[in-house]
């Protein structure tokens, strides 16, 4: 499998008044054509910044560095403004968490949808409107004529997210980045949107990078998953392997936090560490029930086979026990 996106050693620092925040501390990931890759983690783990790094839309203050960061073999680190613009739309497109604020309130939905298609010279306005019509029909924003003339505030959150999806698909991207696309939506709407994404992914043969905090969403959507904690990927592999045979204590603890009727809740004690200053060793060690002294030293990545990799001193089967 040739990777569309190949990243290794990605770091993002955000300097601030309290010192430099090491938001992402060296992560590797690669996404192949047509697959659904999810990054899961709690707030502040760096999952959204990872998405923004790939999109080239990091906040002004953030500093990015990487050993390798390539799109179809081209070095993204050396991309000019123009190259980024050519990438956005036909290659990579994105949808975001807040459908209520992600659309421009003073422009009609139609204007916003056709914009990138026309800009990338894929056709004239008429062709763009025709394609927008098809896509809106496909994502269920009907009646198309009326919807195209509407403003975002005239639609519900679910509809707006569908509009965002149609907008992202206009130029037939090879990769869609979805940053918590259903977090702000109701559960019933969430299922519909996820289903839509899954179907469209298959129809268009595009890859999906899905950022979420919800392991339920991961289980239903992902081919492969990366679990992030404190700016690092602590475990990654196929979704079946990672969720059913978790090798990292954090993944396992996260699963145990989900409330169920039968089993008692086992919360993870303590809080996420602040990512300032020199950070060494496993960042989960202050909350981990398996922690030992050696955890303070750099922890090597270990493989369980089939691309299932985790970063812990424990043997793969020790956590489950």
């Amino acid at each position, binding site marked *: 499998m040739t990777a569309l996106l190949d990243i290794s050693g990605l770091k993002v620092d955000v*300097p601030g008044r309290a010192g430099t925040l090491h938001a992402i501390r060296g992560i590797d990931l690669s996404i192949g054509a047509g697959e659904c890759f999810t990054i899961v983690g709690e707030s502040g783990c760096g999952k959204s910044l990872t998405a923004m790094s790939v999109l080239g839309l990091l906040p002004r203050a953030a500093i990015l560095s990487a050993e390798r960061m390539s799109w179809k073999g081209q070095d993204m680190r050396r991309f000019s403004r123009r190259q980024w613009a050519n990438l956005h739309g036909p290659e990579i497109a994105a949808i975001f968490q807040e459908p209520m604020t992600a659309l421009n309130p003073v422009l009609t939905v139609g204007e916003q949808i056709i914009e990138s298609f026309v800009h990338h010279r894929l056709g004239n306005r008429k062709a763009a409107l025709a394609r927008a019509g098809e896509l809106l029909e496909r994502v269920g924003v009907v009646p198309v004529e009326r919807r195209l003339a509407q403003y975002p505030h005239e639609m519900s959150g679910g509809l707006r997210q569908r509009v965002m999806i149609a907008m992202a698909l206009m130029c037939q991207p090879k990769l869609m980045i979805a940053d918590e696309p259903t977090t702000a939506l109701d559960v019933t709407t969430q299922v519909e949107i996820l289903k839509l994404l899954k179907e469209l992914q298959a129809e268009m043969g595009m890859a999906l990078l899905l950022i979420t905090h919800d392991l339920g969403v991961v289980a239903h959507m992902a081919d492969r998953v990366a679990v992030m904690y404190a700016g690092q990927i602590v475990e990654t592999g196929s979704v079946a392997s990672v969720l059913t045979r978790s090798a990292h204590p954090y993944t396992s603890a996260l699963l145990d936090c989900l409330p169920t009727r039968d089993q008692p809740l086992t919360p993870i004690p303590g809080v996420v560490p602040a990512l300032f200053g020199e950070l060494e060793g496993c960042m989960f060690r202050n909350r981990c029930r398996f922690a030992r002294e050696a955890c303070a030293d750099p922890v090597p990545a270990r493989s369980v086979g089939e691309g299932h990799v985790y970063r812990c001193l424990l043997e793969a089967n020790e956590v489950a026990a």
Partner: protein
Amino acid sequence: MTGLDTTVTANRFLRVRRGLRHAGFVLGAAVLLLTIAVALLAPLLAPHDPLAQNLSIRLLPPAWMEGGRPDHLLGTDHLGRDYLSRLIYGSRISLIVGFSTMLISGVIGSTLGFIGGYFGGRVDSFVTYIINCRLSMPGLLVALAVISLVGGSLFTMIMVLGLLFWDRYAVVVRTATQQIRNADFVSAARVAGASAPWIIWNEIRPNVLHHILVIATLEMAMAILSEASLSFLGLGIPAPTPSWGLMIAEGRQHLFAKPFLVWIPGIAIFILVLATNLLGDGLRDLSQPEGRR
């Protein structure tokens, strides 16, 4: 240029900017404090009596210019009064008007803003209506007309400006209060049985205070400028009291021959107002949180 370089440079500038803002704040505060000290110590600092006329030495230029005399550092005016002494005493007028107006308008405007913002509904409609009425009245014109009728004096000036220029407080406090009124901690206090005044004072006021402080500096600057304008138009502080605006008005007759008579008080006003605004800008920037994420 790669994206990497821009972020690095942008970031360095961010730190520089914050630092400079801080410098502006310190500079503003220092100048304001210095002016206050000068005003308080005027009798000790002023080399001459600011009202003492000496027609034999009228219109002396500043000491460093040709014909200047070292005992009249900034020269003398058309009645031979020492310009430096008048400038020093003039700072008192500016500061008294500035501070008093700021306080009076602050109390009126904030109270209205709290009431409108907290209670909402019809009460707010009424407060908004009052604010709109005030905004529709041309402040400087009303001040001019009223002061000319009542007769110019320091007290009149302060009262008129104070009773007129409360609108910005009211607008800002009202908006800020509206935003906080619906916060859950306010609801919690209501469930706990707290009265509206209690909530406004204990829960809302601390969260609006920095807005009020910023407006206060702006209003003080505004009041200093207004006093100067009114006095310049001859409808403010009556002569012979030294006020910077009045000094410019008096110096205006000699604008072509002795421009320093206008320059000196003009620059004094400029520096004091600039310092007050710098202080306000610094306050605004420093009170802004870096973001909660």
